[in-house]
């Protein structure tokens, strides 16, 4: 089929041929063609097979609104053939076919329709046997379901995000949107005009009377620097406070608009009759788009079904394009053509009052039935009415109503900075649309406090002829599709009502009507009419199903944007790398897991443990949370935040901190070092410090104490020097802190200068060994580290990593918040009664702890050990269950091989009755083996604490 001569084809460049392939066959189109237009120009009208029955399908709207035009590209499924441009070498194939598009082996499904009634899957997939779903249906459906194929080896693509701001966002660049945007921009507003098409103009670009008007508007728009035009941009939803996602290609524009004006127009509605889905049957707008955008003649001989003026316009266009008009079928008594009726009559066109009742053809329409007559044709054009694009206004809270007299949906807007104009507002005649859009812009301008002017309203002389409500009767032989995406016929909806489903939201879920890619754009109105009739109610009472964002499909890439996992580095990051550390993420931080080559990980980690137990090691603890609590009420504040008492804590001493929430659940722990009467330096766990800081600010705002809290996590770095030889190291450092046994007792804290660096030193540790923790401002960290490393060399000090630290702490029986605790863990369950002040009148969680204590312990954390060689599978892993009388009562929270003890050691929750040392509990390994092991205390190593208090 050759192209129509210019000026038909305003989007194609006939001088630039483009070669592409479809279903393995080479095709040629022109630059500017979309896949569907280029194929149609070559006579290829069938683009896909339908979802359920595998019926041949082609283009209907040329607006990217239905599943029938979805095709497969090599790395991109579900591409809209009626919107996606062709490009040189593009390889396109059909979706949802078994074999090929022309010879689909699943086409027999069309004959099985009566065995696949609506909702059949709810019944069928339950049987015939208990496991039928898993063994039969699920594999079968997984094979058949879905449309396109995801390319798991798709090449990398860049997805971008940006924020946009404007006074007024106009959505839709047709006559109404363009006019409103110009009106507002001329008044000084900062305007964004977004449209999903590649060029502005909407129906003006393909309608019969739009070209001159469009040229003038485009010139006006181009002259306005404060009017930003964004074409090929989908406004994919409306969210609270006028926040709208604008998607253009691979970029998401997160847009905040002070005012939003929706001019998204209306969507043409198909007619319902038997075989209304055959290729060659299309909406009037589709025929006009094919001709005016792409110079494609949509057929040779046509029947036009027109229930509005636009149908007459299409008929005249088709005649001008050389298409033989077999007849115009007008269902409206008195005709729908208005002033155009006589113009059409002058062409000699036969006008029949009636409706198209049926179509026939195998893979393309060959005739339609009107009354008793079959009219031969290869094109049937339908222009019977519109529905407003209600999705975006409904996202914003608009209500959709239905006017029985005009047979149209209408929108009632919420009280918000939001307006509608043009076809969306039910205005159709061009002059009336212009006035309506100008007035809508004026309303927005007034709310923006910009200058306004009076707009004279113009009557819409086409409004009464826009829609016509036909009688929709189920054809005895079916295949009268209401929803082409989901292959839903009239009888399916009627049967759903007979099944007892009266409400549309339930009917939708039972039948899947409106669940396809078009999301009801082409089916909602007909569905409402069918259900209204079947339930003897009005269309207004039925309405449409809830519209939720997104408006159209959006890729995960667009939602994701750049992949930027957070990364924080301690001041010693480069030093750790220089030392060969295996750096691993710990929350946002990167920490050394161990030092040395990965192949030797196990040996190296054990060596690091032995170094600490037998000599001395150094661990970078800079990721520990650091908080300064300062002010006259700092002690009182900590008394309320933590479970122990701090008000009388001596200056220069450190004290353990246990934090509970209002439920009495343990949420963090750390150490408070009192530097001065009004200054505490408090550590928190790496993962929880942000939450602890937020909680402190929250409570401080409640209590209004004279306290200031500062998060100094990044500001301070810290190293823990630990092991029997730790004192040898720190006493060798130059400085004014006395690290001797007499001068620096266990849990002491001293501030001073070490190696020229201001230091906060604490005698605390996590290993059970003699330990000193040196904290300093982070910019000095490398200087201090170097000094410590230098004096540590003579005694063989080596840095150790996170895994050795985890082993050392478990050997000593220290808990890890978040690993050995969960969202319900109380201090009593941890055996931490010693950490609860009995004299304080209040701390957060105190009352809950007492109430929970009164209820008794349902579980308790204990130590377990397993006498099995390293790597033995008969040792439980973390999360393995602890059983009592075959019922789970707890689980393993931590389990590791202890190089020091040559045994597997674990912490586990056991039943409260079994928590005493010596009680035997049953643990189930991953391989199912059950072990009976005796309970022991938390502390596996140096239970008398002699080593850390050396």
């Amino acid at each position, binding site marked *: 089929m050759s192209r129509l001569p210019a000026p038909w084809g305003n989007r194609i460049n006939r001088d630039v041929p483009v070669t592409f392939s479809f279903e393995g066959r080479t095709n040629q189109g022109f630059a500017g063609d979309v896949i569907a237009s280029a194929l149609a120009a070559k006579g290829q009208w069938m683009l896909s097979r339908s979802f359920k029955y595998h019926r041949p399908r082609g283009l209907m709207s040329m607006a990217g609104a239905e599943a029938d035009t979805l095709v497969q590209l090599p790395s991109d499924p579900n591409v809209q053939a009626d919107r996606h441009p062709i490009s040189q070498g593009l390889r396109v194939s059909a979706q949802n076919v078994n074999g090929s598009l022309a010879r689909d082996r699943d086409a027999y499904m069309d004959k099985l329709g009566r065995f696949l009634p609506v909702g059949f899957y709810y019944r069928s997939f339950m049987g015939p046997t208990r496991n039928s779903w898993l063994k039969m249906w699920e594999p079968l459906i997984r094979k058949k379901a879905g449309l396109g194929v995801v390319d798991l080896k798709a090449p990398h693509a*860049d997805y*971008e*995000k*940006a*924020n*946009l*701001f404007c006074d007024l966002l106009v959505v839709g660049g047709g006559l109404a949107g363009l006019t409103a945007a110009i009106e507002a921009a001329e008044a000084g507003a*900062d305007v964004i005009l977004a449209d999903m098409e590649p060029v502005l103009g909407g129906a003006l670009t393909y309608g019969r009377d739009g070209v001159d008007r469009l040229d003038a508007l485009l010139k006006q728009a181009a002259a306005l620097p404060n009017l*930003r*035009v*964004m074409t090929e941009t989908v406004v994919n939803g409306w969210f609270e406070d006028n926040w709208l996602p604008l998607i253009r290609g691979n970029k998401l524009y*997160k847009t*905040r608009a002070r005012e939003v004006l929706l001019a998204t127009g209306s969507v043409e509605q198909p007619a319902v009759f038997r075989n209304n889905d055959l290729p060659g049957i299309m909406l009037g707008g589709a025929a006009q788009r094919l001709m005016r955008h792409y110079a494609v003649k949509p057929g040779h001989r046509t029947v036009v079904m027109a229930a509005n003026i636009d149908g007459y316009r299409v008929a005249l266009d088709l005649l001008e394009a050389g298409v033989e008009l077999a007849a115009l079928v007008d269902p409206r008594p008195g005709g729908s053509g208005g002033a155009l009726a006589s113009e059409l009559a002058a062409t000699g066109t036969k006008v029949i009052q009636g409706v198209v009742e049926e179509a026939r053809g195998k893979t393309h329409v060959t005739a339609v039935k009107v009354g008793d007559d079959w009219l031969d044709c290869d094109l049937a054009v339908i222009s019977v009415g519109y529905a407003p694009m209600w999705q975006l206004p409904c996202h914003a809270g608009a209500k959709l109503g239905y006017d029985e007299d005009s047979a149209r949906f209408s929108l009632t807007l919420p009280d918000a900075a939001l307006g509608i104009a043009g076809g969306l507002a039910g205005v159709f005649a061009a002059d009336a649309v212009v006035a309506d859009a100008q007035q809508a812009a004026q309303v927005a301008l007034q709310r923006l406090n910009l200058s306004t002017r009076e707009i004279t309203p113009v009557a819409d002389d086409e409004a009464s002829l826009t829609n016509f409500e036909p009688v929709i009767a189920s054809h005895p032989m079916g295949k009268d599709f209401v929803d082409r995406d989901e292959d839903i016929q009239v009888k399916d909806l009627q049967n759903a009502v007979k099944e007892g489903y009266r409400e549309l939201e339930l009917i939708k879920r039972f039948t899947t009507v409106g669940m396809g890619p078009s999301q009801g754009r082409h089916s909602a109105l007909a569905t409402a009419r069918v259900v209204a009739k079947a339930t003897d109610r009005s269309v207004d009472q039925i309405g449409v199903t809830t519209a939720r964002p997104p408006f159209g499909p959006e890729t995960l890439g667009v939602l994701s944007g*750049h992949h*930027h996992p*957070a*990364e*924080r*580095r*301690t*001041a*010693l*990051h*480069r*030093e750790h790398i220089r030392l060969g550390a295996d750096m691993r993420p710990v929350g946002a*931080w990167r920490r050394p897991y161990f030092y040395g080559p990965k192949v030797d990980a196990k040996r190296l980690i054990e060596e690091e443990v032995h170094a600490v137990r037998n000599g001395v090691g150094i661990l970078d603890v800079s990721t520990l949370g650091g908080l*300064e609590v*300062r*002010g006259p009420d700092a002690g009182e504040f900590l008394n309320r935040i933590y479970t122990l008492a701090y008000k009388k804590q001596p200056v220069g001493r450190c004290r353990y901190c246990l934090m509970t929430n209002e439920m009495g659940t343990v949420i963090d722990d750390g150490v408070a070092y009192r530097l001065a009467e*009004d200054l505490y330096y408090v550590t928190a766990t790496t993962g929880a410090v942000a939450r602890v800081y937020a909680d402190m600010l929250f409570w401080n705002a409640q209590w209004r104490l*004279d306290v*200031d809290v*500062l*998060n*100094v*996590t*990044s*500001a*301070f770095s810290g190293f823990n020097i630990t092991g029997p030889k730790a004192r040898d190291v720190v006493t060798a450092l130059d400085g004014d802190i006395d690290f001797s046994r007499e001068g620096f007792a266990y849990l002491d804290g001293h501030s001073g200068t070490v190696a020229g660096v201001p230091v906060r030193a604490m005698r605390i540790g996590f290993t059970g060994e003699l330990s000193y923790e040196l904290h300093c*401002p*982070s*910019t*000095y*960290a*490398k*200087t201090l580290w170097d000094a410590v490393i230098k004096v540590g060399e003579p005694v063989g000090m080596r840095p150790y990593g996170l895994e050795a630290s985890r082993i050392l702490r478990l050997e000593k029986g220290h808990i890890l918040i978040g690993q050995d605790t969960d969202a319900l863990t109380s201090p009593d369950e941890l055996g931490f009664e010693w950490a609860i002040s009995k004299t304080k009148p209040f701390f957060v969680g105190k009352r809950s702890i007492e109430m929970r204590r009164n209820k008794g312990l349902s579980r308790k954390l204990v130590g377990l050990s397993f006498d099995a060689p390293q790597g033995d599978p008969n040792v439980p892993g973390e999360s393995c269950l602890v059983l009592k009388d075959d019922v789970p009562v707890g689980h393993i929270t931590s389990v590791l091989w202890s190089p020091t003890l040559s045994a597997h050691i674990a912490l586990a929750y056991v039943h409260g009755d079994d928590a005493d040392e010596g009680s035997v509990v049953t643990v189930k390994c991953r391989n199912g083996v059950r072990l009976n092991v005796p309970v022991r205390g938390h502390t596996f190593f140096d239970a008398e604490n002699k080593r850390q208090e050396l």
Partner: protein
Amino acid sequence: MRIYPLDPQGAAEGTPLVTGDVTLRDFSHTSRFGLKGRGSVAFLQSQGISVPGVNETATGVLRLGSEEVVVLDGPTELRASWEAAQAPKGYYAWREETWAMMHLSGERLFDLMAKICPVDLSVSAFAVGRIAQTRVGYVEAITWRNDRDGIGFDLLFDIAATAFFADAVATASAEFNREVTP
């Protein structure tokens, strides 16, 4: 010796800072005297320092809260004066340690800021002298217009995220080499 992240041996040593359509420069060595808590503003005023309104900046003084202030490149004796002063005088905020300080400029500056910051920082919406406490480049940040040698923004953010921030800016600005933004 003090070492900031982008210095030799610093945590972000070797991390490239973008130049071209957008230029990112490091000013983390800038002296920052920060106070927070009761008495902060009064102390600074007693030192003859003019303190602007909340979320405003003037003459190198950033007012981040009713009692939270940072003085950039302030008098060297300021800390000694503060330590010698009687409370209430605010509390030391360690701003030279908690934050990195960087500067963004370039022809595509505003396009970049639109990508990495959710606040409208355009010339018409964000006046010189205002401070935005927001997120920039996926990290919490404080930013304000500071036209050093052309229009630009100064930024303060978590010093531990220096390399991450530089990488985020580089990734975001890479788009300018690939396509045209509106």
